[in-house]
């Protein structure tokens, strides 16, 4: 299924939901947005997981200077141009203004203001200590209040707990899926679709597992194995093709579309022992050590995490993993520490490519060359 089909199906899915009376909440995807709360309130979360292109980026320049994160530019461009396959964006009832980074705030605010979508605020503290965790809970309760005002009814704790469990099971299944021995592009396609649809995708995911066990396909790849960290590969981004054409295979996605999402599973004992569902979400925020939002330990945590994955992989397969640190141009979080991340990992003998890019077509040749050269070195 190509992306046109995916977007068309998704559009039909959202229309069906709207006909059922559901409201849709859009947001720039990040790992601290409590989609379970939207689900419990009866809303459909719509994560903006769509890659940009020259036209989208150009269209955003009426609102933002070109030295803005290329993904944020593209999100605005999507709303500004709204090509046919994205007309489902018209179905969005509310838009979350959040602060994963400052470009998230700016782009979300512009989308809400310029395209007349009522906004809901949800701000995340930058540190992850006792007080910021308390603050995170304040934001959750504030968001709850906003959702309840829209709905005119209370969000019951048991409903939220059910939603948390539902998303938890879904993430567990995705985690299992992530270990399958399939090509990176096939894996990515399913991850993108899964995270776009959320738990609605669970039956399809389960049937994928069933089909695989029926056929017991054990594919062996001759490609160089790669871990992708940093920015996600969003829907319609040809980057994965460039990696595979260059002789690589991404076996681990350490990004929003990938491990950042499905690693945030809440253990069963926590689910059972914490009665207040908001405290469960707080617990998850507290344990989100590998997301790029928080300071001051992001770099150290990330190095530890990547080194562990690398060593585990080496022990298990006897093969080295190359790391591509995917940097969307003008990304505050990934870009600023990228040279330090690379140097520190290389000191440990781990090969890293800092791959910076925007979404322009002109840059593809250069990306291919850099990827190929890197893969040759592994």
């Amino acid at each position, binding site marked *: 299924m190509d992306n046109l089909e995916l977007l068309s199906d998704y559009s039909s899915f959202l229309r069906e939901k709207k006909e059922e009376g559901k409201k849709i909440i859009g947001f720039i995807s990040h790992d601290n947005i409590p989609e379970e709360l939207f689900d419990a309130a009866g809303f459909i979360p719509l994560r903006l997981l769509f890659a940009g292109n020259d036209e989208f980026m150009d269209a955003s320049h*009426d609102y933002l200077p070109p030295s803005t994160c290329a993904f944020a530019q593209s999100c605005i461009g999507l709303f500004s141009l709204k090509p046919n396959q994205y007309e489902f964006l018209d179905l969005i009832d509310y838009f979350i203004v959040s602060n994963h980074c*400052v470009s998230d705030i700016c782009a979300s605010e512009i989308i809400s*203001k310029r395209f007349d979508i009522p906004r809901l605020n949800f701000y995340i*503290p930058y540190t992850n200590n006792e007080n910021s965790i308390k*603050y995170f809970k304040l934001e959750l309760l504030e968001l709850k209040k906003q959702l309840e005002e829209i709905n005119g009814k209370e969000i019951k704790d048991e409903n939220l707990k059910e939603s948390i469990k539902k998303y938890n099971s879904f993430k567990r299944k995705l985690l299992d899926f992530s270990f399958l021995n399939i090509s990176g592009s096939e894996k990515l396609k399913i991850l993108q679709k899964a995270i776009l649809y959320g738990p609605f995708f669970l039956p399809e995911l389960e049937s994928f597992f069933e089909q695989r066990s029926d056929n017991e396909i054990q594919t062996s790849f001759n490609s160089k194995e790669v871990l992708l960290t940093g920015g996600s590969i969003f829907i319609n981004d040809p980057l994965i093709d460039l990696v595979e054409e260059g002789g690589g295979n991404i076996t681990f996605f350490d990004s929003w579309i990938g491990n950042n999402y499905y690693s945030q599973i809440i253990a069963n004992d926590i689910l059972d022992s914490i009665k207040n569902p908001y405290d469960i979400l707080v617990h998850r925020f507290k344990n989100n050590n590998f997301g790029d939002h928080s300071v001051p330990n992001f770099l150290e945590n990330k190095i530890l995490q990547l080194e562990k994955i690398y060593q585990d992989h080496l022990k298990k397969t006897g093969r080295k993993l190359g790391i591509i640190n995917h940097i969307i141009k003008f990304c505050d979080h990934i870009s*600023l520490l990228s040279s330090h991340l690379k140097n520190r990992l290389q000191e440990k003998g781990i090969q890293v490519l800092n791959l910076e890019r925007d979404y322009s077509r002109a840059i593809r040749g250069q990306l291919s060359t850099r990827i190929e050269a890197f893969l040759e070195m592994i």
Partner: protein
Amino acid sequence: MSLIADEIVRFSSVLRISYNLLTGRDYLKRKKFREKKKLISIALPFSDLVYGFPNLVPTFPIRMHTFEMHKYLTYLGSASRIFGWKNVSNFLGIIKNLNIGDVNKIIDEIINDVIDAVNNKYNEMYELGIENGVPTDFCYGIKSLYGMHVSKGKNVEANLNYTIRCSAWNKYLESLKTIENPAKQIWIDIPPRNIGNALELLTENLYDGIRELEKISGNNYDRNILRNHFQVANEIRNYYKTILYDISTLGFYPCNPATFSEILVILNNSFQDYNSNAIRYRDNMASLVKEMKERIRNKIGMDVSKMPRILITPMFGGWEPKSHEIIYELGGRAFYADWDILLLLEEIPITKISDPVEAYAHYLMNATKNGIGCDNDTLTDSYLRLARNLRADGLVFIQVFGCHSISNCYAMLKDKLRRELEIPSIALNFNRIGENIEQVKTRLGAFMEMFN
């Protein structure tokens, strides 16, 4: 000849503040090695908490550098210790009026050197930041601040880090840990919004910061010391606001408008750490206001009533320092008021709130909620408020390359300025000091024609 030198020599307070800015290294060395005080690095106007500990010295890191200071300014500094700055300043003014060629040249050079020395150092730090791994994508301010820490960070005991809405800023603070032998990091998280008990949480965060400062200081926190400092800090703010609101809005200036802008630049820079000595700084501010008022009373200065008032902002993340001179040459008067836009010149409410830490939390939360804002709607309203209150006729917005926070609000701001204030605005791109002067001249030339 500099437009500015002619005038600045007549303000002994400005000479003092400039001298303190440039001789920071000697002053800080004395504090550190002779008086055994400990230096705490700060940036943006967040030095106040450090003043709660008399053996800790807040410093904006560029001040730890040696500046290429004109030898005569060094002599003047020495002379001032004997004769006092005012007499030195008067003496310079007399010499200037006598129009003795060589001496005049020296005075011009001295003042030009102050400005050029600071700007050259900023550019040097910018290059150092890039050489040490800050990607070119980031703003001038972050690159140069990182460079300052690479070169002089080893001299400080700690960095006092406040989180703000700018994610690049917060990540930059984290990146200071990557510098060899990094200083201790003290983090104070400012909650993004004032919801629920966020103010209480901020107060607790400030107390946590104080506990860390206590460990470095070796002394216990004394609320009276902090309260006394806040009184001084509030006086500084009042003097600053007097210059902005009472003097800058007059039709008669105590000097030419380019000099006036230059004074505002020096204040903007020095306000961040009060030159590491808040009481001395307060006294200099008091003299400055007095000197300005005296000159206006004696009709010494310049009639500027027909000159359009141009707000240049933001400049704290980097801007072309020639801008105000260019505007002056084009018939306008430029002013800078970044800290007031962000509500950092508001008083710390110690008269209303007895606990000084809690009062400081209110001050910070007010700046976050109503000044800096957690979104661009609030931030652009802050620009509007200031442009309205200071009766700006036009606004020059500095769009700093790589600034993803403030520069991003220009489209919204332009729209609001046109609709609500009906004043023109222009955006100037900025990457590095001195890089783009011709373009700045052309753009400002076109902009200023609107006022003819």
